[in-house]
């Protein structure tokens, strides 16, 4: 099982030539909540166009890592850049490149679907025909035409998840972050969401945060595994997850003999 060096300095121009997408680089990224270390000196380099699966048990630090990337949280230490822009000092540049579908649907129950999508588009600087076309496009792509006038509070969880994904696709962003996209959905809905993400692969960088190994196997080209805030494994999906009992990767007692720790300094 291989690991990728966090000190890999390859630029998106060389590695990602011919691919659309943003490059995400974290160096010794750390986040504490009081005494609790949620993200522990993570070194990671996500290449343009790559779909990276971020795996880990609940509380492993996946969502915190994503929130650091989006700029919603500030890091305690370390560096982070998205296409060279820091979420700390240049959040607007980062947000311009970002589409984000959070773990649970972040919707306004009172707003009809169309109004919500128009609001998100507007808040991303779209207006006029551009906004109208984008809303129609994502509504068609996520099959929301039937419910576009209904308040989101009246939608099923599956539809809410679709709306959440649809808003992330509105601007066709170079970096798409999806946090547990199929959580709580029935198998049919899960398949639908995976189809959408499958179609989006390669067109942009996708950071897929999940604890569903089959989802990671199906969508991710590489996976990174977090445990108690530490990056404990990173590499091509097949190599990291293999064919065995991959769940043991999430548990501390089994890990030390099986996978190689990332080589970044200070990660202990």
């Amino acid at each position, binding site marked *: 099982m291989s690991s990728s060096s966090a000190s890999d300095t390859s630029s998106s121009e060389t590695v990602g030539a011919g691919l659309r997408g943003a490059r995400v680089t974290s160096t010794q990224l750390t986040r504490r909540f009081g005494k609790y270390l949620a993200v522990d000196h993570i070194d990671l380099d996500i290449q343009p166009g790559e779909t990276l699966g971020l795996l880990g048990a609940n509380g492993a630090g996946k969502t915190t890592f994503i929130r650091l990337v989006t700029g919603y949280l*500030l*890091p*305690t230490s370390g560096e982070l850049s998205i296409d060279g822009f820091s979420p700390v000092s240049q959040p607007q540049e980062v947000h311009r490149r970002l589409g984000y579908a959070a773990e649970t649907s972040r919707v306004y129950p009172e707003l009809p679907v169309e109004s919500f999508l128009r609001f998100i588009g507007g808040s991303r600087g779209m207006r006029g025909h551009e906004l109208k076309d984008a809303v129609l496009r994502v509504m068609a792509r996520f099959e929301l035409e039937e419910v576009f006038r209904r308040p989101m509070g009246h939608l099923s969880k599956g539809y809410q998840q679709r709306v959440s994904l649809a808003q992330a696709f509105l601007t066709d962003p170079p970096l798409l972050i999806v946090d547990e996209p199929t959580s709580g959905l029935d198998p049919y809905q899960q398949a639908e969401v995976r189809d959408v993400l499958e179609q989006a692969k390669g067109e942009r960088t996708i950071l897929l945060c999940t604890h569903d190994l089959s989802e990671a196997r199906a969508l991710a080209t590489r996976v990174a595994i977090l445990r108690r805030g530490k990056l404990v494994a990173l590499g091509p999906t097949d190599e990291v997850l293999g064919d065995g009992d991959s769940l043991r990767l999430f548990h501390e007692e089994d890990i030390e003999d099986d996978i190689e720790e990332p080589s970044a300094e200070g990660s202990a």
Partner: protein
Amino acid sequence: MPSSHTFSYLRSALLPIGLIAIIFGIGARYATGDLGVFGGINLAIGGAALLLSFGLALRNFHGFGASAARAVLLRRVGVLLITIFCAVSLERGMARLAWQWDWTIDQRFHLAPATLKLLEELPDYSYLGSVQLTLFSHPDDPRVRTTRLLLETLKQKSLEEGGQIQVRELMMDRAAEEIERFEVTSSNSVGIEWGGYQTTVQRPNEGNLLEAIQLLIPRERRVLYIAQGEGEGTPRSTEPSGYSGLWGALEAEGYELRGFATASFAEIPSDARAVLLLGPRRNFESHSLAALESYLAQGGRLLALLEPGTETGLEELLLRVAGFHSPSDRIVIDPLAAALEGQPKGLAPLINAYGDHPITAGLSARTMTLFASARPVYAQRLPVQGDRLFPLLYTSPNTYLSEDLQRARRGGLPEASAGEPPERQVIGAAGEYQRNEKRARVVVFGDADFASNRFIRSLYNLDIIVNAVHWVAEREVEITLRPKRINPYQEPLTPQDSLRLFYTVGLLLPELLLVAAAITWTKSRNA
């Protein structure tokens, strides 16, 4: 040792408990007007709970971590501090500038030119110290608010002139000594203290405050003689037909007034600054007319108010010596004038056109004067080349003259005299004459009632009569426009109107809003 979970629970619970206790503590104070035991205990408990909650929060505080976070927070706290500084500076700056806009219908917070003039003059008396104004108030007295604002406006305006006005407020129940000293009997009184003298104004307004301060100004008093004995109005009578209002106003403006019986004087006293004739109704004795003529020939100063329909012998003197012709058998009728109580419409002209003269300085179409009934005053001819005559008050172009005074006295509207078309009439005029190297001045008004107690506070009547006295007495510098008496809104709304409004706006509007709420709710349920 309690667990961290217990601390967290305590912190969460103490915050709302503290806030609720404070709400009820303060609420009790507002409801009862006193903090009391209930309020005090609640505030103490609330404060303690909040402090404890804050302490527990600090216990869990582990700092703001990285330099990046600290920098972001520092920047934000810096912005907050700058905002607070700017907010306080803006408020203080505006307090210093004292900009304000008076939206009252009677412009009650616009200081009159006379008040501004007084504020300008006060620094001349700086050796007397500041004018100390003390407002005696009771918290439940609503009238105090207006007075407080008026005093504050006076103080702010005086700051522009050197700050000679000091203002303080004393609660009625906490200033027994001062209440006794100023002999205050009720809330909303202002004690005025200046140069060792003091006075008290009950129910203060700009006008009576101004007069009270003016009376304290130490200045040489000019003597005015007011003729009596020929049917004139009683100068000190407080009846509606009396002239005590004019008397008080002239005293406040620095005059000493003396009544004198014209018949008993062979000549006008030498210390007379001017002579006032307030509507004589009987014929003057010939020696009285001779005394007046002699007085004017030596540069005397006369203000004559003539009532319509009264022939006193003065008319001939005024025409011959001063050039004014005021026929006693004519009365001015303005069909557009409003009716006064007990009079037919048309007899009481409202004057809104003035001649160009110091007496009418500042008066315009918006600053009207009201006359009860008037006779014309023509500037007929110049007695001596070089004399100057000035028309002061013009009636409206619709005015006509009538000789039917009997009809007017019976309450009817007199008809126009034959052959006299409607046109502007002059009902007040002034003249200036060079006599024996002295300057004589005469002002004649074709009405006396306008200066009586009944009408002197109406519109700008006080200003026109007092300014005329100032001009006649050669004290032009005192000419100004005085504060107007505030007539508060005291118009009723009829029960029918009130009920109609209650049904339409009071009930219909809430009903429509409720329907809107129901529609919104139904729409969201059925979407």
